[in-house]
């Protein structure tokens, strides 16, 4: 089992702690403010994009790996990173293509699996 031996357990711990803390911040927002979950998701994506645009978020990704990329902050940071990289290749056009290009996998998967899962699921019927 070379794969098991190749795992960096310190990295896993950092990932767990950072991912957990990012979620706790969201939980505090839910409990202490009247923000709806939808607004919190929007705040996370936008904040992630800004932190990514300022070049700060990549340090967190280097430190925590999936602990930083899996939360929605990482989705926002990825959008920003894609736009900034594509701008260097394609100029102004890149500002419009880069973000979505970098997140295309996630967006397409969400649409596809989302629709598929909705088809197989039965709507809940409330029992009286």
């Amino acid at each position, binding site marked *: 089992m*070379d*794969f098991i031996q*190749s*795992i*960096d357990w310190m*990295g*896993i711990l950092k*990932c767990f*702690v950072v*991912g*957990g803390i*990012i*979620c*706790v*911040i*969201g*939980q*505090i927002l*839910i*409990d*202490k403010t009247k923000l709806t*979950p*939808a607004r919190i*998701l*929007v705040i996370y*994506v*936008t904040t992630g*994009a800004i932190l*990514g*645009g300022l*070049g700060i978020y990549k340090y967190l990704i280097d430190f925590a790996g999936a602990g930083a*990329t*899996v*939360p*929605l902050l990482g*989705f926002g940071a*990825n*959008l*920003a990173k*894609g*736009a*900034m990289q594509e*701008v*260097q290749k394609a*100029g*102004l056009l*890149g*500002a*419009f293509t880069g*973000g979505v290009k*970098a997140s295309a*996998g*996630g967006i397409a998967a*969400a649409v596809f*699996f*989302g*629709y598929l899962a*909705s088809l197989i*699921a039965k*709507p809940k019927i409330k029992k009286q």
Partner: protein
Amino acid sequence: MKPIETKQEYSNYVDQKSPNSPIWKNCLNAFWVGGLICTIGQFIMNFCKYQGLDETASSTVVSIVLIAISAILTGLNIFNKIGKFAGAGSLIPITGFANSIVSPAIEYKSEGYVMGVGGKMFTVAGPVLVFGISSSVIIGILAILFGAGA
């Protein structure tokens, strides 16, 4: 009971009546469930890199796998139970984004497969994409103006 006249009074009344959620317990649950979801992501990422994929591709595979899992769990009505327990722990990771697409889609299934499922999928995910993508366009334009590199 005296009648409620101002917004402030109403807000006080709601605070009084709504159950106090034990914030420490919520935070603890959010912490370990959120951390665990990220850790599952990290294992998938390590496995992809072990198979020879680069950083960007691995990260995309992680998103796709987590989204697929949470879409299916939402369809089977398991995700909602996790969500009730973990709060932000399952909302903030990309799993919450997938859940936000599937939940309304199932709910509005009776309105049809095109406008019901296809349309309502984006009640929450729509704003997320609008703000996320718009920010990325603005950041791209700013990057040109200020000549910042990625």
